[in-house]
């Protein structure tokens, strides 16, 4: 038995393709990106080492970067609040006993998660167009709708709220699905015991459901935060970062700097920022939600 499972040749054959792909496409490029982040390079000639200049520029002279950081953090917080609370509430309601049409509701809410963000973004860019879609409907009632994606009068432009709303619309279903799976794993006995003791449904929710779904909450929140930091498709297809860079996020700024401005060094520094933010945020979530092992 052991002899067969310790077959060295087979181990090498089985493992080599995965390791090669992983090294070539993931690990080596990351090392390169880190190295490039400390260089100035416009794709012609050879990269020139500039130390921390790129990172200094990010936080001092690059005004768009500050907008991008603000908007990315806005999306993180906004998705966290909307997606998690709505997702959890819907999951709790759908999981309640005697619920009819559970699968129907569940499947509808999850549907947008499997649709291309690019296509959905284009759809919503028409719905929130100043003349078509929602504003045309409002006009029927004599209401002059706002400019939606083009409106930049607020501190955080209306476009960011709209895009955040679309993101919540699209991804609420995935949080709901995770919470439903977690709630399905809670033993019915707890609820029965609570009921005998005279607890109301709301009390059961706060004192049984909430504490017991903490591990899943951690996963759901981490996934939502990382997804928000990588946010690109909706922005690119709804506003392209405009008007006047007001709806730029980290990923769209990186895209413009790298493939519009050919500033590969600086763009690499932004990409490293995104990775560091992802790691830091998941670290914070991990620390903040303590899960007791029973």
């Amino acid at each position: 038995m052991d002899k067969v499972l310790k077959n060295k040749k087979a181990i090498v054959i089985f493992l080599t393709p995965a390791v090669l792909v992983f090294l070539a496409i993931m690990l080596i490029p990351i090392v390169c990106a880190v190295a490039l982040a400390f260089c100035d390079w416009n794709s012609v000639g050879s990269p020139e080492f500039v130390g921390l200049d790129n990172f200094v520029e990010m936080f001092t002279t690059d005004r768009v970067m500050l907008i991008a950081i603000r908007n990315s953090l806005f999306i993180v917080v906004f998705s966290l609040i909307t997606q998690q609370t709505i997702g959890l509430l819907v999951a709790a309601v759908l999981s309640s006993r005697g619920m009819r049409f559970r699968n129907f509701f569940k499947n509808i809410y999850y549907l947008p998660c499997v649709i291309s963000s690019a296509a959905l973004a284009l759809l919503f860019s028409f719905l929130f167009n100043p003349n078509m879609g929602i504003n045309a409907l409002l006009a029927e009632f004599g209401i002059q709708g706002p400019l939606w994606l083009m409106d930049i009068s607020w501190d955080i432009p209306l476009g960011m709220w709209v895009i955040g709303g679309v993101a919540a619309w699209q991804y609420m279903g995935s949080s709901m699905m995770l919470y439903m799976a977690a709630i399905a794993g809670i033993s019915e006995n707890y609820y029965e015991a609570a009921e005998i003791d005279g607890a109301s449904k709301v009390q059961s929710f706060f004192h049984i459901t909430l504490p017991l779904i903490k591990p899943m909450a951690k996963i759901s929140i981490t996934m939502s935060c990382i997804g928000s930091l990588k946010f690109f498709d909706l922005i690119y297809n709804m506003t392209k970062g405009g008007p006047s860079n007001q709806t730029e996020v980290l990923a769209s700024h990186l895209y413009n700097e790298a493939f519009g401005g050919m500033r590969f060094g600086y763009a690499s520094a932004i990409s490293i920022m995104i990775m560091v933010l992802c790691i830091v945020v998941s670290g914070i979530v991990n620390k903040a939600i303590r899960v007791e092992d029973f």
Partner: protein
Amino acid sequence: MKRKKATGAARIIKYIVLSVLVLIYLIPLLWVFFVSLKTNGEVMTEPWSVPEVLHWENYASAWFAGGLQRATLNSIIVCVITLVASILIGSMAAFVIGIMRWKHAGKAMNLFLFGMMVPVHCILIPLFIVFVRMHLTDSYLSMILPYTAFALPMTIYLMNGFFKSIPWEVYEAACIDGCSIYRIFFTIALLLSRGGIFVVGLMTFVGNWNELLVAMVFTDSPEVQTIPVRLTAFVSPYATDYVRMFAAIVLAMLPTILVYSMFSNRIVSGLTTGAVKG
């Protein structure tokens, strides 16, 4: 012991709220479907009515003029190859890590799991430079390679779990009967985890089918571009032939909606197992 049923009013409110939410989810999708069947004039004058005459020719026009037929073919080629490659490569690695006796299995697993933390943005620039030098950009391979690499961590993680859930006696019996390790992998481990492979495959397929950033950076020509890129290039709020763009949006959304309606339960179970184990 029966729990108290919610009171009538509370029940009704519950269903009303859930139904309103259903409307919020369906109206945008129905809206784009309806306007895609109108004429450009109707789109401007009455964008919210149900179309009276159905202009299916908009779809033909989007399909051919928008280059969607080529893009759909490209998406299928890229996603299928990625699917097969990532499942094959991933399960081989998962088999070594989960089933075979190898002292660095734990370290290898951690290395692959680290891949889950890496945003694709980090590898975009170095890979772009390398692909340009190797004349790999604007090819299927320029998408297949990154897609496969990024599918590997999840595939390895889930397949590892599926292989381990096969009773150990099965592996033992095969060894005693003199099965080679290759036969154990292909005819026992892979065959017995078909359900798992299906779920992992669906998730990989849907994810890559919708991927925009990598495909946009690494391709230029319609001959290799996938649906999301083609659609992004074709649809612009500043163009005027609206109905054709709406039809294109519907055509781009349709394949995953169909796949989802056929396999929704398995996609959902895949999503939750992935997260619970991750």
